[in-house]
């Protein structure tokens, strides 16, 4: 069992974390679409895919395919002002 974490500033009411089992062959796009269906996740899949995702601390594209060994996915907006 892994975890999906959400740091999406337009959706502060979305669950901060969601326990999730990453199935081999599923993609980040699949994951975003499944997460968007979960009660408590108010962010749409498009928002999750907007900036890509980090899998176990590394940036991946939306086509990334899980092999089932992953522990954590972060859907996270980037913040750029200073």
């Amino acid at each position: 069992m892994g975890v999906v974490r959400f740091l999406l500033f337009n959706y502060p009411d979305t669950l901060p974390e969601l326990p999730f089992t990453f199935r081999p062959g599923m993609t980040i796009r699949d994951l975003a679409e499944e997460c968007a269906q979960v009660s408590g996740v108010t962010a749409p899949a498009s928002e999750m895919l907007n900036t890509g995702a980090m899998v176990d601390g590394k940036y991946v594209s939306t086509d990334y395919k899980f092999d089932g060994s992953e522990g954590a996915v972060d859907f996270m907006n980037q913040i750029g002002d200073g």
Partner: protein
Amino acid sequence: MENRYIRQERFQGVGEKGQEKLRISRVTVIGLGALGSMAANNLARAGVGFIRLVDRDVVELSNLQRQMLYTEADVKSQVPKAHAALKHLQEINSENAYEAVVTDANSATIDSLISDVDLVIDGTDNFEVRFLMSEACLHHKKNWIYGGTRGSIGMTKNFIYGEDQPCLRCMMSYDGARNMPTCATEGILNATTAILASLETNEAIKILIGSDAVRKEMLYFDLWQNRSRKIPVVKNEECPVCGYGQYSFYGKNTGMQAAELCGRDSVQVVPAEEEHIDFMSFAERLKPFGTVTVNAFTLDFDDGTYGVKLFKNGRAIIKNVLDANRAKSIYTKYVTNQLPEKK
């Protein structure tokens, strides 16, 4: 003799040895807005021996809500932020050395800004410069600290040079980081920027004195929602930048550059080659087209529709325009085409 650092030295993480390391340390702060000016202030007070202050812009009234180093007098005199910061920091701690650099951090200038310092602090407001900074720091084997903010949210990550260490590209793509909302559209709280800048400064001090307490994760916080989180970031062996050495920004010369400025109806234009403009004679050339005012640092021109704030190195901020290409056209009309031919 009175010691201004006595309280800091008494903190066991710093001590007298740490203080001495700070004294001989050299830091560049790129961008002197809310984050950079606060970080520079903290570093100067902490006794960092040399601080290079880099910014391309002037102080504006809307800056004062969160850019703690500046005053209304700086707004009135339209002084570049780098020089305003230098003046105030000299008044705060004259024992340090400072260098004010009024320039755009780009592929042509970045080497001279970072190659001779121990650490680079990010006070910028866009990811184009951050990716450039990341690649340049990798090339020069420098440590740097990323900080980004918006509203009540802050995010920061230390990038320590090393073969097993991640770079900015390991954790995000440039395409994914573009077109994010800005402080101009979403607002910003001064507590957010003050805390984030202080976090950057605190890590800077640890890095400079060689502490083993340097944070490895990215830190995210939301002051309004009372949330914070540390997010692990690791090196991606497949990273095009630190994995394969394929730079997308560093060393790339792309001619005249134009970039929209954070919600100000303005576009910055940087010429392909640096100029050395004599304002007095240039003002005469522009007078037939509109009003011209000159001070020691900038030439301001207004044709009734567009404004041009011109710096001596040829960089300009084109006002009342949103489109980069339109801004380039205005620049070409009023700057490039009015400059005397190069001998």
